[in-house]
């Protein structure tokens, strides 16, 4: 298996089921490939940071001023 394929299966495995064949060939590749082991480790951390973006710093509400402006804009265009 190439590193290209191995990295693909690593990513596929985070989001979906993989076949037994994919599982075994990935396992074998990771045994012999130091770089893909590093990729797997980085990819896992990257996944965690991505998930942490879920909490947004912006307020999730509109202010009264925003809502009044919105009402005016909608009434004009009606």
């Amino acid at each position, binding site marked *: 298996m*190439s*590193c*290209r*394929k191995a*990295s*693909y299966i690593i*990513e*596929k495995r*985070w*989001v*979906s089921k993989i076949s037994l064949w994919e599982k075994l060939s990935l396992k074998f590749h990771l045994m012999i490939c130091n*770089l*893909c*082991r*590093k*990729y797997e*480790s*980085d*990819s896992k*951390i*990257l*996944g*965690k*940071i*991505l*998930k*942490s*973006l*879920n909490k*947004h*710093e*912006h307020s*999730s*509400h*509109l202010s009264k001023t*925003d*809502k009044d402006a*919105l*009402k005016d*804009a*909608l*009434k004009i*265009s*009606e």
Partner: protein
Amino acid sequence: MSQSINISDWVDQYADALYAYAISRVDDPDQAKDFVQDTFLAGIKSYDKFEGKSSVKTWLISILKRKIIDYYRQREARKTTPLSHFFRENGRKGHWVQDMAPKGNFAEDESEIENEELKMTLQSCLELLPGKWKGVVFDKLVDEKDSDEVCKEHEITPSNLWVIVHRAKLQLRECLEKKWFNA
């Protein structure tokens, strides 16, 4: 003709929910406000066609979702990095290109995951992805939505999803390594 819509009531009842959804997708308050306004406009225009099969709120959210998808689609496709940037095409075919070899150093900073600056750096890397990928990455990797749902919403197959996730993670990993871990 917009039969019996009270615009003020609509805004009071639904604007926050629409805005909360939009801001979670675009991370830009002004753009999110535009989406809310456009959604209300579309809703007012097509209220005649609303069959009442769902609540008004669900119906408006579905209009908003469609608008956000179109927005990402219309934005000029950003540069997608070819796989040959990461993997060799001759010699040891499919092996890591030397300069692109992962260093595996992300784990050293695992304790910093909640670091706001790190998040902002990753956000800036996300901005560089092609528009369509960005929406998929947000839904699947940030919000961890069900894969079937993501495929349906973005009109892609499961293997499209795996390819996008693979390519996006390769690009994001490289970007973050350059901007954060090696900086």
